[in-house]
């Protein structure tokens, strides 16, 4: 089985990679899309004053 890694995927915001597995006939056997990133805004916004949250979450994606 042959493996093609597209790492990183480019020209978009964020991190991603794609693993493609080819079977012996050269066709795509399976394909996995992975996101190798997490920052945890869901957790670290907890406890911050509500009016500050827009300033913080604007740094989820600056694109």
């Amino acid at each position, binding site marked *: *089985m042959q*493996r093609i890694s*597209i*790492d*990183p995927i*480019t*020209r*978009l*915001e*964020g*991190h991603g990679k794609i*693993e493609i*597995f080819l079977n012996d006939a050269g066709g795509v*056997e*399976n394909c*996995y899309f*992975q996101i*190798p*990133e*997490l*920052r*945890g805004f*869901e*957790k*670290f916004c*907890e*406890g*911050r*004053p509500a*009016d*500050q949250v827009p*300033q*913080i979450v604007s*740094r*989820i*994606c*600056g*694109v």
Partner: protein
Amino acid sequence: MSKLKLASYWAAACGGCDVATLDIHEKIVDVAAVADIVFWPIAVDFKYADVEGYEDGFIDVCLFHGAIRNSEGEHIAKLLRKKSKVMVAFGSCAISGGIPGLANFKQKDDIFYRVYIESQSTQNPQKVYPQTHYAVPEGVLDLPEFYKDVKSLSDVVDVDYYMPGCPPTSAQIWAVIGVIASGALPPKGAFVGCENQTLCNTCTRAKTDKKVKKFYQPYQIITDPEKCLLEQGLTCMGPVTRAGCSNQCISANHPCTGCYGPVEGVIDQGAKYISALASVVDADSPDEADRIISEIADPAGLFYRYGLPGSLLRRAK
């Protein structure tokens, strides 16, 4: 003269630093005239494997955005360090952890639980967490290891220059690119694209006696656009923040939250701000001082908004 080889990367970042760079607009064409971009995930299609193939020191300047959040960030930082003559920590994430560094107020397990189990938009009845290695019928898939702590770039590699801001302003980025292209590099360790004075020093608002009897949240008062915001009871971080952003927030009548980081000689912006506040609180008794100070909402989250991992505190216990 051969063209400058330029790389840019984002670890735990938001892409805002990349966009601020692109916001130099048509001048990007001038950049292309003096520099070849050899790696820049947001804009051009080079892969990690291409970078691995470069000779050591092949890249002249690497602009590194983002904090070090996981093993991939550290790995790529080390790879780019090896391949680059000059490494620039670009933006507050790379310098001191930035906004993603707020995660150091929380624990890794709690972050995973919130994100992968508890959050309202998650459906994960089998409670599956990401694994660093996972066997699928076709082979093994890998994911980076999520570290316990967010780190700054200089925690993992040697850094030559620091360019503060969240993000740095496009005007400053353009000026710094000019310096790099001219080859007149400042001494190692320098902060570039900023000034060596506090924001207050450059602020044109009227400053009189700083005597604060009550602190407000920005939504609680309508401020006088001519007067110092701190004097009006808003926690403006100007006294402990490096100038260089063209006073963006304070010009828009919003207190500075400190994104350009501390001025030279200060290692802990938050601690310095405690000091600054102590000198403006106008209390006649310890009880009154307590009352005034307790009105500041989420002081830790504000004083360390952009720099908890790079501070003396580093993280909450």
